[in-house]
């Protein structure tokens, strides 16, 4: 009965009515063009966001008097450049349609999972870490500058506590993001290991 059920279902499956999608070659060319301009706009949006961050910290580095926060701004700008360059590199390594045919489904699936896993695992080093030195120097610089103001000594403990709170909050957010990414990467690794079993002969 199992073979019969399978054959019956295959017959029904193949005889089901389907609405044939008729796409002309002209439509395909237009769609490919649209896709390219969508990628271009996405890249431009990323660069515009980067330019905004660089512009804002550049303006601050230029206008604020104390040296340490200015140095922090410069480091944040450098960190943003590094993130943009990494984004650009990763965007350039996007999947080309022909690669989908050169790879079997399991290889393609595996490489996609590996790409996502590596992205998640390395997010700490290319997305978060480049901003840490700049933020640290910026915050310390602001703290020193604030403590140098008249009457600041009277409220020193409150000022230090406020800055410590901000620093701990930022660190917790960064660590939280990293933990979540690593957890997701571990789940992907489990999936990859399950796929490896399937490629081996049973």
């Amino acid at each position: 009965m199992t073979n019969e059920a399978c054959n019956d279902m295959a017959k029904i499956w193949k005889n089901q009515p389907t609405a044939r999608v008729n796409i002309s070659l002209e439509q395909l060319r237009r769609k490919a063009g649209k896709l390219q301009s969508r990628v271009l706009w996405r890249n431009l949006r990323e660069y515009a966001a980067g330019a905004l961050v660089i512009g804002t910290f550049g303006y601050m580095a230029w206008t604020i008097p104390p040296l340490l926060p200015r140095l922090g701004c410069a480091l944040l700008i450098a960190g943003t450049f590094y993130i943009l360059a990494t984004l650009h590199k990763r965007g350039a390594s996007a999947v080309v349609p022909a690669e989908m045919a050169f790879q079997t489904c399991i290889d393609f699936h595996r490489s996609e999972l590996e790409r996502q896993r590596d992205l998640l695992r390395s997010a700490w080093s290319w997305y978060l870490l480049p901003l840490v030195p700049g933020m640290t120097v910026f915050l310390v610089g602001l703290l020193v500058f604030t403590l140098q103001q008249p009457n600041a000594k009277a409220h020193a403990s409150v000022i230090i506590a406020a800055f410590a709170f901000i620093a701990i909050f930022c660190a917790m957010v960064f660590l939280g993001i990293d933990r979540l990414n690593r957890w997701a990467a571990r789940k992907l690794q489990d999936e990859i290991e399950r796929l490896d079993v399937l490629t081996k002969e049973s």
Partner: protein
Amino acid sequence: METESAIRTSRQDELYQEAAASHGSALERLVRGYEADPDRCRDLSQEIHLALWQSLARFDRRCSLRTWVYRVAHNVAASHVIRDHRRNSRTLVGLETVEVQAVVEDREQMLDQRQAIERLLQLIQQLKPLDRQVILSRLEDMDAASIAEITGISPGNVATKIHRIKNILARRFYEGGIHDERSLQ
């Protein structure tokens, strides 16, 4: 140089037209196995046709056109499922763990095509991408060797999965399928 590029484009167009004519209907059925929503189904179908057309610029006959078409289609569709899965956190299951409820139904009822297709789609759409690829290929009457070539799963594992699929279909669509399945083991 320009002539060479024009020849390549015309060859790519011809191959696409050949692929669409031979496998167009099968691709539509494949899309239904990956996406339930009719609007998104149409989008996925267009995405597959676009990727197929683009990929054929580099078709080098290292495999048959059929294998090429199915690899591109399944890989585009699997990426769609993974994207969707990340957005909705829907849990996908494997053939080994899929819940199979025996449905009391006779063969005439089972042959009510629309109902049978709907139930089959419900089953397929809860599976992980690779298991979908195997069941969809089997429903297109492909043998274990062809499925192994497309998916990359070893032929032995494909055979195991096909055996499981047959059992699932029997239990799900036939009255008393459980007894028949036991008698086969």
